[in-house]
C-alpha cells in the first residue's frame, strides 16, 4: 500500500515535470517576441507611434497674383473653405455617411464616389468632400466637432479671375493635378489634390506662381482631435507676375469677338510684348477652381466651337492674301522685282497650262508691287511665285518665322506649315507640282499659319527686320531679366524692301485698297487683308454658298503708325467672309482704342465709320 502510494507519488512528480514545457516555452517565446518588437523593430514602431499622434496639416500657399502691364490686378486669391474628411478618424462609416448626406447635402452616391476615388491614398491623407462651402456648412461641421472629429473645415486660397472671360486664354486656369501628371512629375512639389496651373500663364509660369506651402504640426488624440500645436510654418505666397497685356485693349479685343469665332492679337512690334490676345469663344476660368464635379468642364470640352482652344496660337489656318507680304519681301530681297516691275492683270492668267483667277474679275490692269499689295492682286503674285519657285518662297517664309513656333510663353502653340518639295516628298511621298507654287503664292494650298505667326512676321517687317519672340510676361517678382524666359531670334531683312512693303500696306488701308475699312483719319495705319477660300468657288456654288461653315476665313494684319510702329494687330475670324469687310474693322477698333488713349482724345470722336476713311 505504502509502496503503491510511493509509486503513485513518483508518477505524479513525473507528470508535474510536464509543466516545465509551457512555462519555459511560453516564457522564451514572449521574451523573444518582446525582443523582436522592441529592439529589432523598435525604430519602426516608434515612427508609427509618432505618426499616430502627430498630424501634419498642410497649409496651401496662395499663388502669386497676376496683373496687367499697368498693375491692374487680373488674377488674385480669395479665401475659401473646404470640408475635409480624415478617414483614419472615422469610427463608423455609416454614421459619417448619414451625417454627411443629411447635414452637408452631399448625396450618398457622391460620397461613395469620393471615398472610392480616394482608396489608393494613404488613410492619414485627408480628402476634400465639399469645396468652397458657405457659412452654413462650416457651422454644421464646427457644431458637431465632438461627435464627428473626422470632419474638419480647412481654409484654402482660391483663384479669383477678376475679369472672367477677358484674357482667359492668356491667364489660363488652375485645376487639380491629375494622377498622370503626378506620376510623370510634371509639377514638382505637387501632391494629390494640389491645384496647379493647367493652361495659359498659370501653366507656363506655374513654378513661379506656386508658393511654398506651410504646415501646422499638431498633436492629436486617438479620435483625431487636436490636443496641442507643436510647430507652425507659415505659407509663403508665390511670385507675383506682371503681364504685357493692356486690360483696356484686351477688353476691347474680347468684346469685338463677341458672337464670332476667331482671335485678335495686338503686339508691340519693337519688342514682342503682347498687348492683347483674345480668342473667341472664351470661357470663365473661375469655373475651374473647384475640384469636384465640373459640369462646366464637360460642357466646355464638348462645345463644337472649342472655347478652350486659344485660336491665336493653337490653330493654324491658310494665311490667304496676307501671305503676299511674305512674297513681296522674298521677291524684293531676291531682286526678282523692284519698284519698277509691272505686271498686267486681266483678271486671270495661265500658269503651267492652268487658268488662275484674280480676286477682281475684270482685272487690275498694269500693277506695280505697291499696288499689288494694296489691291491684293493675285496675278502679280502668281507671276512672282513662278519666278521665285517654292524653295525660295519657303526659305523667306521660314526666315520670317513661318512653319515654326514663335516661342510665345503660352502652352500648346502650333507651328503651322510652310510646305516645300522636300516636305511633300517626305510626308506624302509625292513630287511637288509647280502648280502648287502658284497657289502657295497667294497663301492658299498647304501653307498654314497661326495668327500669332502672321502677326510676328508683319511686326518684323514693320520694325525693319527684327524678328522678336512674342511674350506675355513683362515682369516676374524676383527675376532681374525676364528675357531669360524667351529665345530671341532675328531675321535680316532688307530695309529698302521693307519700306516698299510698308508703302503697299499703307495704300491698302489708306488709298482705297482692300484694307480701307481699317483706316482711321490722322493715323498712318498699314495693313493687309486676307480672305481664305475654304472650298473652291465652283464647288461652293454647287453646295449652296450660304452655309456658314463654307464661308471664307477673314484675316487682317497691320500695324501703326507707318513710320514709328508701336502696335501691330492681327484679326482672324473663322468663316468671317472677306478680310476687308469682317477682320479689318475689328483691327481698326483696336488701333482706335490704343491711339485714342495714347495720342489725343479728339481722335476718338472723329473716328470715321468704315468706308468713309481715306487719307486727307
Amino acid at each position, binding site marked *: 500500500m505504502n509502496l503503491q502510494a510511493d509509486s503513485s507519488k513518483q508518477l505524479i512528480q513525473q507528470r508535474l515535470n510536464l509543466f516545465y514545457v509551457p512555462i519555459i516555452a*511560453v516564457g522564451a517565446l*514572449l*521574451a523573444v517576441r518582446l525582443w523582436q*518588437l522592441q529592439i529589432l523593430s*523598435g525604430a*519602426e514602431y516608434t515612427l508609427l507611434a509618432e505618426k499616430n499622434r502627430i498630424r501634419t496639416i498642410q497649409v496651401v500657399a496662395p499663388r502669386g497674383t497676376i496683373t496687367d502691364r499697368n498693375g491692374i490686378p487680373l488674377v488674385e486669391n480669395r479665401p475659401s473653405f473646404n470640408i475635409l474628411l480624415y478617414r483614419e478618424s472615422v469610427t463608423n462609416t455609416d454614421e459619417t455617411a448619414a451625417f454627411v448626406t443629411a447635414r452637408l447635402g452631399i448625396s450618398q452616391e457622391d460620397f461613395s464616389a469620393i471615398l472610392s476615388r480616394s482608396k489608393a491614398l494613404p488613410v492619414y491623407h485627408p480628402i476634400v468632400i465639399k469645396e468652397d462651402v458657405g457659412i452654413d456648412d462650416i457651422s454644421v461641421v464646427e457644431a458637431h466637432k465632438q461627435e464627428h472629429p473626422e470632419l474638419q473645415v480647412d481654409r484654402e486660397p482660391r483663384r479669383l479671375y477678376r475679369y472672367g472671360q477677358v484674357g482667359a486664354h492668356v491667364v489660363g486656369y488652375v485645376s487639380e493635378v491629375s494622377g498622370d501628371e503626378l506620376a510623370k512629375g510634371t509639377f514638382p512639389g505637387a501632391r494629390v489634390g494640389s491645384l496647379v496651373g493647367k493652361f495659359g500663364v498659370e501653366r507656363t509660369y506655374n513654378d513661379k506662381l506656386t508658393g511654398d506651402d506651410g504646415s501646422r504640426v499638431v498633436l492629436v488624440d486617438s479620435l483625431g482631435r487636436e490636443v496641442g500645436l507643436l510647430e507652425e510654418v507659415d505659407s509663403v505666397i508665390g511670385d507675383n507676375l506682371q503681364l504685357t497685356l493692356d486690360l483696356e485693349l484686351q477688353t476691347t479685343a474680347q468684346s469685338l469677338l463677341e458672337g464670332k469665332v476667331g482671335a485678335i492679337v495686338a503686339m508691340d512690334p519693337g519688342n514682342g510684348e503682347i498687348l492683347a490676345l483674345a480668342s473667341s469663344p472664351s470661357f470663365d476660368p473661375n469655373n475651374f477652381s473647384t475640384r469636384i464635379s465640373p459640369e462646366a468642364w464637360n460642357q466646355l470640352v464638348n462645345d463644337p466651337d472649342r472655347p478652350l482652344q486659344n485660336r491665336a496660337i493653337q490653330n493654324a489656318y491658310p494665311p490667304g492674301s496676307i501671305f503676299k507680304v511674305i512674297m513681296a519681301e522674298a521677291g524684293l530681297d531676291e531682286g526678282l522685282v523692284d519698284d519698277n516691275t509691272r505686271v498686267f492683270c486681266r483678271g486671270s492668267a495661265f500658269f503651267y497650262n492652268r487658268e488662275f483667277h484674280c480676286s477682281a474679275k475684270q482685272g487690275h490692269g498694269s500693277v506695280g508691287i505697291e499696288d499689288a499689295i494694296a489691291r491684293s492682286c493675285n496675278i502679280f503674285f502668281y507671276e512672282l511665285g513662278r519666278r521665285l519657285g517654292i524653295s525660295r518662297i519657303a526659305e523667306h517664309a521660314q526666315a520670317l518665322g513661318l512653319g515654326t513656333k514663335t516661342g510665345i510663353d503660352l502652352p500648346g502653340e502650333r507651328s503651322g506649315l510652310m510646305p516645300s518639295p522636300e516636305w511633300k516628298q517626305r510626308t506624302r511621298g509625292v513630287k511637288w507640282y509647280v502648280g502648287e507654287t502658284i497657289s502657295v503664292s497667294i497663301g492658299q494650298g498647304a501653307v498654314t499659319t497661326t495668327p500669332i505667326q502672321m502677326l510676328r512676321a508683319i511686326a518684323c517687317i514693320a520694325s525693319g527686320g527684327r524678328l522678336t519672340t512674342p511674350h506675355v510676361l513683362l515682369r516676374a517678382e524676383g527675376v532681374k531679366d525676364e528675357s531669360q524666359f524667351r529665345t530671341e531670334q532675328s531675321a535680316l531683312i532688307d530695309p529698302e524692301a521693307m519700306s516698299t512693303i510698308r508703302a503697299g500696306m499703307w495704300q491698302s488701308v489708306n488709298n482705297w485698297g482692300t484694307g480701307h475699312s481699317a483706316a482711321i483719319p490722322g493715323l498712318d495705319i498699314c495693313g493687309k487683308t486676307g480672305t481664305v477660300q475654304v472650298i473652291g468657288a465652283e464647288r461652293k456654288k454647287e453646295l449652296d454658298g450660304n452655309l456658314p461653315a463654307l464661308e471664307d476665313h477673314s484675316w487682317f494684319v497691320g500695324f501703326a503708325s507707318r513710320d514709328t510702329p508701336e502696335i501691330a494687330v492681327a484679326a482672324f475670324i473663322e468663316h468671317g467672309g472677306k478680310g476687308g469687310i469682317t477682320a479689318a474693322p475689328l483691327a481698326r477698333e483696336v488701333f482706335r482704342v490704343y491711339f485714342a488713349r495714347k495720342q489725343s482724345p479728339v481722335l476718338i470722336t472723329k473716328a470715321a465709320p468704315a468706308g468713309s476713311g481715306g487719307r486727307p
Partner: protein
Amino acid sequence: MKVNRRFLLSFDWVWFLALLGLAGTGLLAIWSTTVGTSLESYLGRQVVYLCVALVAFLILLYFDYHLYSDYIILAYVSGVALLTLVLVIGRTVHNNKSWINLGGRAFQPSELVKIVVIVALAKYFSESDREDLDLRELVTGGLIVLVPMVLVILQGDLGTAVTFVPIYAALSVIAGLRRKHILVFLLAGALVIPAGWMMLKDYQKNRIQTVFDPSNDPRHVGYQTIQSKIAVGSGRFLGKGFRQGSQGQLGFLPARHTDFVFASWAEERGFAGSVAVLGLFILVALRLLRAAREAKDKVGTLICAGVLSLYWFHVTINVGMALGLLPIAGIPLPFVTAGGSSLISSFAGMGICMNIRMRRYIN
C-alpha cells in the same frame, strides 16, 4: 497554525515579494495611464482592492488548507448558485452579463468560482488511490468543471469560460490520464473546435482572424492589435518613461489599464521593464510548480497544479494578445490588470498554494 517564528521562517518571502512586485507594477501602470483622465478613480480603487486581496491572502494562509478542501462542496454549491443568480440579476458590461453589484461596486463572481472549481476538482481527483483516472471519475470531474463553465458561457463571457479548460486538462493529466482517454479527448477536440467556431459570434471570429492579418481592418478589430504592437514596439529598450507613452496617454491603445495593461507597461518601461515583469511571472510560476511538487499530499499537489495552470493560462493569453500573437480576449493579466475580482481571485489562489507549501512538513 500559530503565527510564530516558525511560521515566518517557512513563509516564502521571495514568492510573496514577487506577487507584490507584480501588483506594484499594476498600480504604477494604472497610475500612469489614468491620472488626469476620466479614469482617475481606478488607482484609488485598485489600492483598496489590493488591501482586500492581501487580507484574503492572509486569511487563506492562516487555516489549514484541508479545511477548504473538506468543505469545498459548500463553496462549490454556493458558487454555482451565485453564477445562476448573476444570470438572473446580473449587470451587463461590454456584452457580458457576468457582473453583480456588491456594495455599489461591480463584482465578477466567475473569477472566484475558478478557484473554487480548482479546489473541488482537486479534492475529487485526490480521493482516487489509483495511478490514473477511470472513465467515471473523468466524466464526474468534467461535470464539476462543466456546470459553472456553462453558466459562464450563458453569461456571454467566453473568455472566462475558456479558462476552465486548462484547469480540467491540467488536473486530469496530473491525476493520470489513460492513453485511450487521451485519444478520446483529441477526437472530441477535433469535433468540438469546428462546431465551436460556428457557434462563435461574428466579432469573436473577427478577433481570431485578425491575429493572422491585423492590417485587414485597422479601424475595428485589427486596430487594437496594431495599436498594441505599436505601443510595445515604440517602448524600445528603456521605454518612454512615466506618463510619456503616447499610445496609452492619447488613447490609441484600447483598455490601456485593463486588458492591455501589459502594452502600457511595455511602452513606458521598454524591453527592460517588460522582461523584468515577465521574469516575475516566471518566478511565480516556478514557485507554484515547486509547491505542487513538494506538497504533503495529493490534494495539495492537485490544487497547486490547478492554480498554476489557470495562472499561466492567463499570463500566456493576455501577454500573447498584447504582443500580437494571440486573438484579443478579455482575459485579465493576474495581479496587474485594474479590477478587484481578478486581483482578489489571484491572491486567493496564491494564498491557498502558499498555505500548501508552508504545511508541507506538518502531519
